[in-house]
C-alpha cells in the first residue's frame, strides 16, 4: 500500500507539466552555460589555460562544464526530458484516446446547458427542422449523421477530429529526434581525410590522433578551386571514386553542399589548399659549353624523379625548401609557405657516376653549381594541392529527419486545425413547445468558431423560412383546387 503510494506519487510528478517545465528550464540554463564557457574540443587547450585560472579550470573539467554537450549528466538530463514527455503523454493519452475513438454524439441535458455556444429556434415539426439543419451543415462543408434515440433523431457533425491527437504526434516526433540523436552519439563517428590527386586512401583520421579504417578506399581523380574576380573562393570540387577490392564501384564529383554517400558513409568537401609539397618545378637547362648546342632545354622536374638532359646526364629535384634560412651550417625552412624558396637539384653523370649538388639560388657552402655541366634556371613552380574531406557516419539521421517531418505534420495539426463539433437536437420545453436546439464547440481558435456557429444558425433559420414559405404555397395551391 505504502509502496504503491510512493510509486504513484513518483509517477504523478514525472508526468506533471511542472516537472517537464522544470527539466526544460535546467536544460536551458545548462545549454546557455555551455555556450558561454569555452568548450573543450572546439577550443585549444592553451587557450583554455589562458582564459581560466588553473583551479577554476580543474573544477570546470571535473564537473564537465568544459564539454557540457557530451557530459554524461547532460545526456542523462535529455533522457529525463524524454521520460517526462513519455510519461506525461501516457498519463493523458487514455483520456484523449477515449475522446478520439468514441466521439460524444448525443448531448444530454446537462451538457446542453453547460455548453457556451448554443441557440434555439422555434419549430413546427421535427423532421423539417432536422432536414434544414442537415442542409445548412452540408453547405458549410460538414457531413452530419443522424443519431437514433429511443423516440427521436438528432444530428451530429464534426471536422478534424485528428487534431485531438496532434499533441501526441508532436511529442512522438520529438522522441524520434532524440532517439536518432542518441543513436548517432553512440554509433556515429566523424573524421577527416586529406587526399592529393591520384592518391587512394581508406584510413579516416579521427579526433585525438586516432584513425579508422574503412572497408573500401577512396581515390581522388582530381580536385580544384574556382575563384571570384576578387580572389575569394567560389567553388571547391573533387572527383572521387570508390574502390572496393581493386574494383571501382562508384564515381562522383563532389562540391561543398553535395556529398558522396557510400554505404552510409558520407564524404563532404570541406577544404582545399596547398600541401606545401612541390608537384612540378619547371626549369630551363643550358649547357655550360656553347658547343653542346646552346639551345636551352625546358624540363619539368617532379620530386625525386630523375630526368634525362642528354645522353649522359640526368637531373633530379632532391629537395624543395619553401622558405629557407641557413643556420649552424644547415638549411632549414622557416615555414611551409613560399617566402624565400630554394631548390636542390642533383646532376648525375652516368658514365663517371659522379653527382653535383646544384642549388637555386646558390647557397654558399652547399652549392657546387660551377662543377655542373648545365646551368639551370627556374621558370615556374607547380605546387601540389590537397582536398580536405569531412567523413561522417550518422546511422540515426533518418530517424531525425522522419522526426522533423512528423513534427511538421504535428504542428500543423496543433496550430492550424481545430476539432469542430456541432449537435442539433429537437427539444420540447415544459409547455410542450417544440424547438431546434443547436450547439457546438471547438478545441482551438474559438473566435473563428464563434463566427462559424453564427453562420450555421443563420443558415438553419433561412432554410426553415424557405421551407415554411414553400409549404405555404403548396397549401395555397391546394386551397385553390
Amino acid at each position: 500500500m505504502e509502496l504503491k503510494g510512493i510509486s504513484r506519487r513518483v509517477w504523478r510528478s514525472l508526468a506533471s507539466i511542472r516537472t517537464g517545465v522544470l527539466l526544460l528550464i535546467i536544460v536551458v540554463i545548462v545549454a546557455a552555460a555551455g555556450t558561454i564557457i569555452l568548450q573543450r574540443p572546439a577550443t585549444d587547450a592553451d587557450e583554455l589555460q589562458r582564459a581560466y585560472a588553473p583551479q577554476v579550470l580543474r573544477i570546470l573539467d571535473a564537473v564537465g562544464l568544459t564539454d557540457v554537450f557530451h557530459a554524461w549528466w547532460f545526456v542523462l538530463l535529455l533522457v529525463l526530458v524524454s521520460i517526462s514527455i513519455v510519461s506525461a503523454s501516457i498519463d493523458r493519452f487514455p483520456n484523449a484516446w477515449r475522446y478520439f475513438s468514441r466521439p460524444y454524439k448525443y448531448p444530454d441535458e446537462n451538457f446542453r446547458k453547460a455548453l457556451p455556444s448554443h441557440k434555439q429556434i422555434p419549430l413546427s415539426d421535427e423532421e423539417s427542422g432536422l432536414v434544414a439543419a442537415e442542409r445548412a451543415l452540408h453547405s458549410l462543408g460538414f457531413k452530419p449523421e443522424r443519431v437514433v434515440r429511443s423516440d427521436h433523431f438528432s444530428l451530429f457533425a464534426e471536422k478534424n477530429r485528428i487534431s485531438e491527437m496532434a499533441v501526441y504526434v508532436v511529442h512522438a516526433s520529438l522522441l524520434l529526434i532524440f532517439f536518432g540523436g542518441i543513436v548517432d552519439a553512440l554509433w556515429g563517428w566523424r573524421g577527416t581525410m586529406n587526399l592529393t590527386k591520384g592518391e587512394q586512401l581508406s584510413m579516416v583520421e579521427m579526433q585525438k590522433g586516432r584513425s579508422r579504417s574503412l572497408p573500401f578506399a577512396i581515390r581522388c581523380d582530381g580536385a580544384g578551386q574556382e575563384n571570384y574576380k576578387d580572389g575569394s573562393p567560389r567553388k571547391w570540387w573533387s572527383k572521387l571514386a570508390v574502390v572496393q577490392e581493386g574494383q571501382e564501384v562508384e564515381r562522383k564529383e563532389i562540391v561543398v553542399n553535395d556529398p558522396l554517400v557510400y554505404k552510409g558513409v558520407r564524404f563532404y568537401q570541406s577544404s582545399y589548399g596547398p600541401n606545401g609539397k612541390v608537384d612540378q618545378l619547371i626549369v630551363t637547362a643550358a649547357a655550360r659549353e656553347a658547343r653542346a648546342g646552346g639551345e636551352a632545354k625546358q624540363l619539368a622536374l617532379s620530386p625525386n624523379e630523375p630526368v634525362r638532359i642528354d645522353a649522359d646526364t640526368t637531373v633530379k629535384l632532391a629537395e624543395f625548401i619553401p622558405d629557407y634560412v641557413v643556420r649552424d651550417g644547415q638549411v632549414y625552412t622557416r615555414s611551409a609557405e613560399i617566402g624565400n624558396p630554394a631548390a636542390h637539384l642533383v646532376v648525375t653523370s652516368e658514365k663517371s657516376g659522379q653527382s653535383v649538388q646544384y642549388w637555386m639560388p646558390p647557397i654558399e657552402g652547399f652549392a657546387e653549381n660551377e662543377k655542373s655541366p648545365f646551368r639551370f634556371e627556374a621558370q615556374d613552380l607547380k605546387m601540389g594541392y590537397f582536398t580536405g574531406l569531412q567523413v561522417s557516419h550518422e546511422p540515426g539521421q533518418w530517424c531525425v529527419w522522419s522526426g522533423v517531418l512528423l513534427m511538421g505534420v504535428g504542428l500543423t495539426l496543433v496550430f492550424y486545425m481545430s476539432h469542430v463539433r456541432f449537435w442539433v437536437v429537437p427539444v420540447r420545453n415544459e409547455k410542450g413547445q417544440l424547438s431546434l436546439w443547436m450547439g457546438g464547440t471547438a478545441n482551438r481558435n474559438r473566435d473563428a468558431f464563434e463566427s462559424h456557429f453564427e453562420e450555421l444558425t443563420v443558415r438553419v433559420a433561412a432554410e426553415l423560412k424557405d421551407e415554411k414559405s414553400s409549404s405555404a404555397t403548396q397549401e395555397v395551391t391546394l386551397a385553390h383546387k
Partner: protein
Amino acid sequence: MARAKAEQQTVASGSALIVGVGLTVAFLLFIAFLNVVKSGNLLSESNLLYAALIFYAGAGALYLGFGVTGIESYVRWASLATWAGLAANTGAVAHRWYEAGHPPFASIYEMLLSFVWTLAALTLFAEKKYRVKVIGTVTMPVAIVGVVLMQLLRTDVHPLVPALQSTWLHVHVTLAMLAYAACALSFALAMMFLIQDRIETETFLAATSLFTIGIYLGILTRFEKWGGLSVIAWNPEERSEIFLSRGVRLFVTIPDLGWLMVLALLVVGAPFVLYVLARARKQDGLMAIANRAVFVSILLQIIALASFVLRARSGQYASLDAEGLFATSLAASPFILSGLVGGIFASLLYLLLLWRRPDLERLLPSADNLDRITYKTICIAFPLLTLMIAAGAYWANRTWGSYWSWDPKETWAAITWLVYAGYLHMRITRGWRGRRAAYFAILGFAVVMFTFFGVTYLLPGLHAYA
C-alpha cells in the same frame, strides 16, 4: 472654459508636432537630395536606406507623440510614414538583391535589412488585420535601431563563400527572418496588452530598471578597464577589426568612459532601489522620486550614448597589448551601441506608460483581444522557428556533415524554441492568460534578440558570417 482652453492648447501643440516632424523629414530628405545631386546617383542603396530611416524615425516620433498627447491624427500620419519607409526599404532590398545577385541573407548587414523590412511589413499587417493601430510605438523604434546599426556595419557586397551557396540558405534565413519578425510583433502586442491591462507602472518601472541595469552591468563586466572602456581597434582602410593573431582581436582603451558607465549604472539602478524601498516601507513618496530618477537616468543615458558615439566614432587610442595608437569605429562595438540605445528605448517606453492616456486605450483592441492576438502571433512564430531550425540542420548536414554540433547559435536557437514551447505549454495546459503570458512573450523576444545579435557578437562559432 479653462478646460476648453487646455484642449485647444493640446490641439495646437499637436499640429505643432506634425508640422515639426514633417519639416524635419522634409529637411532631412532635402539634405539627402543635396547629397544625391553631388554623387549623381538617386536610387543608390544607401540613399534608399537613409530615406527609410527618415520615414521610420518620423513614424516613431509620431507614434510616441500620440502616446504623449493622445491626438489621433498622429496615428494616421505615422501609418503613412511607415508605408513610405517600407517603400524605401523595399527599394533598398531590391537594389541589394540586384547588386549582389543573391537574396540579401549573406551577412549580418543583409539580414538586418531583411529583418527591418519584415518587421515594418508585419506592423502594417497587424494595423490592418488586427486593428492594433499603435503597434508601431514599439516596433518602429526597433526598426530605427536596426537601420542605425546597418549604417555602421560593413556594407560591401561579398560573394558567397562555398558553404553559403545553397538553396537551403535562403529557406533557412527566410524562415528565420519571418519567425523573428513574428516574435517582435508578439512582443509589441504583449506590451500593448500590458498597457491596456492597466499594469501598475511600478512593476514596469522595476522591470525597466532591471533591464537597463543588466545592460550596463554587461557592458562594464565585458569592456571596462581601468576606468576606461576597452573596445576593439579598427582598421579604417580595410574596414575591419584589427587582429593580433588568428581569432584574437586587439583592444584599445578609451579613457574615462568607464567611469561614466559606472555613474550611469548607479543612476539607472536608483529607480529599482527606490522601488524596493517603497515596497518595503510602503511609502508612496519614494515612487515619485523614482519616477524623477527615471528622467535623470534617461538624460544620463543619452549623455553616455553621445559621449560613447563621439569618442568611439573616430579617435586614436592606446592599447595595452601593442604599441602605438589605434583608430576605433562604432562598427567595431555594435554590442555596446545597441545596448545603450536599447536602454534608452526601454526607459522611453516606461515614460510612455507613465503618460498613458485614455485615448491610447480607446485606440487599442480590448485586453482580451490583444492577449488572443499575441497568442496567435506566437502560434505563427513557433512553427516558423521549428522549420527554421530544421532547415538549418538539414543544410548543416549537407555542408559540414553533421546536423547538430551544439554551436552557440544553434544552441541559442534551441533555447528560443524551448522558451516558446514553455509558453505554449503553460498557456494550453495550465491556462496561463493575460499578464503572465505577456511577460513570457516579452522574455521570448529578449531571447530571440540575444540569439540574433548577442550570439554573433559575444560568442564565437560556426555562424561567424551572420
